[in-house]
């Protein structure tokens, strides 16, 4: 639409203001979304890295993995029956390094599996973030509940749980530290994992994430901010286009009088909305990706381009709805009113 573009060119300031508001709101949304995602990775990368499937907890465990104990015989049967099934346990704890400095970790152990590093007794594989704390392959770590010593044999990328780096240890060592024989959960990968197994409760990966105490609360509040921002930006669109349309009632009347279709007036508004939103979004997507590259290492920030694109589509839809609602005035304008109102 030529007319739409010509108006943008003539009234640069007006559209620049709207554009910068959309830019700021969407940029803020992307940054918060990056933080939400980063925190979620930081909190539960261990679980997020696992392919889709189901986790099973003991029915008596009240959806709390730390209370769950899988019967040893049942576990053996499940591992035998389902290809790729793994039993695993997670507990928060500490390791001490040679200088007796304490590092908080999440101890994880599992049956032989492709999903997690398999470690021998008295060995440990750590999340790579502990390298930054000065731990190297070959270092010796201790734990006050454990009679032996752990030798660091390697590092795993992005394995965190409950905001702590994961330490993979052998089942025997785990059983000694926590004085339990049973594993907490069995994971069966793939979509054919059964919905119900006698005595056990099943959880999809997402449901299992929400059993991590901090995870649900954290994500909920951040997601709430994100959706608030999205709704606010929709309202901004509606209000802005409303004000712009009110200013142009007279013009719309004249255009209608000379025979311009109401639908053309709507297209004009949609074109302007699309133009401003796309330009603002391109800028904020670009800038947020740039931010994601230069974000300080300690900052949990992760913003996949897919997330920004998805949010951008939401912004476009919301902007469209906002502009359209405000555009109902255009429909009501009577050409005659405008003519009798005199000079614009």
């Amino acid at each position, binding site marked *: 639409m030529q007319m739409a573009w010509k*108006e943008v060119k003539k009234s640069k300031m007006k559209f620049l203001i709207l554009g910068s508001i959309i830019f700021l709101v969407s940029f803020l949304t992307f940054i918060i979304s990056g933080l939400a995602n980063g925190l979620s990775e930081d909190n539960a990368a261990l679980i997020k890295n696992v392919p889709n499937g189901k986790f099973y907890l003991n029915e008596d465990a009240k959806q709390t993995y730390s209370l769950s104990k899988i019967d040893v015989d049942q576990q053996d049967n499940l591992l035998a029956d389902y290809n790729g099934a793994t039993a695993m346990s997670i507990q928060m704890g500490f390791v001490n390094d040679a200088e007796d400095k304490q590092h908080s970790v999440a101890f994880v152990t599992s049956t032989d599996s492709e999903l997690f590093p398999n470690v021998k007794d008295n060995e440990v594989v750590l999340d790579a973030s502990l390298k930054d704390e000065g731990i190297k392959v070959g270092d010796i770590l201790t734990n006050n509940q454990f009679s032996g010593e752990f030798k660091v044999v390697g590092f795993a990328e992005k394995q965190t749980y409950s905001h702590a780096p994961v330490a993979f240890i052998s089942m025997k060592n785990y059983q000694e530290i926590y004085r339990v024989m049973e594993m907490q959960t069995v994971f069966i990968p793939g979509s054919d994992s059964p919905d119900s197994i006698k005595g056990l409760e099943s959880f999809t990966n997402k449901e299992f994430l929400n059993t991590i105490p901090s995870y649900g609360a954290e994500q909920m509040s951040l997601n709430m901010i994100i959706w608030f921002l999205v709704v606010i930006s929709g309202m901004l669109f509606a209000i802005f286009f409303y004000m712009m349309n009110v200013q142009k009632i007279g013009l719309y009347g004249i255009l209608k*009088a000379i025979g311009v279709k109401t639908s053309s007036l709507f297209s004009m508004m949609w074109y302007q909305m699309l133009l401003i939103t796309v330009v603002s979004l391109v800028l904020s997507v670009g800038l947020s990706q740039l931010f994601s590259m230069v974000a300080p290492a300690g900052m949990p920030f992760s913003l996949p381009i897919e997330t920004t694109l998805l949010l951008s589509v939401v912004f476009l839809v919301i902007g469209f709805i906002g502009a359209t609602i405000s555009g109902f005035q255009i429909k009501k304008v*009577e*050409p005659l009113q405008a*003519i009798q109102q005199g000079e614009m």
Partner: protein
Amino acid sequence: MAIFTIDDVEKTFKNGDVSEKILKGVDLDLNEGEITALVGPSGSGKSTILTIAAGLQKATGGQVLFEGKDMTQMSQEEIRKIRSSEFGFVFQSSHLVPFLTVEDQLLLMLDVAETKLNKKQQKQEVLKVLDLVGMSHRKDAYPSSLSGGEKQRVAIARAIIHQPKMLFADEPTASLDSKRSKEVMEIIRNLTKTLQITTLMVTHDEEMLPYADRIVTMKDGLID
């Protein structure tokens, strides 16, 4: 032969319980290519009959025949089509689009009227018409930089560029001084005569009457 016939047109405005009959059966024939001036005291219903004839509001009784077809029986969309391709409008205010240049105002009108000209022909047509109203040197100007007389010339150019059959003008010179008014009337007369456009014009300015072919007086909602 009349190209446009207003036949026993009535208009009643309702304001709550109060209703007031403004037009009490107006009859008027407009002959092809003629300029008809509608005069009469303020409030006698001149603008009302003009806007009804132009399809900008509905009569509450009677018929409005354009080329033999009754516009009071047409749908909104049919009337819009007629307004965009067969009618032209000039009002007391020029009502130009503030963010379009003079040239773009006229190009827009050609688009709206769905003329079958290509882009190049459209531009040529615009220049030709701007020449006729003496405004081709301001084709890149925005309305805000034009004087009242210049705006009105552009408004006239916009009203006739798509070669409509009818021109409706409601006090087109009311905002101009005597000299500019005469210039504008000169232009209206020349253009409508060259293009054979039938014109209905409301005016209260005696000085404009010599430019009309016929003068009709309205009084109290009736043609005198």
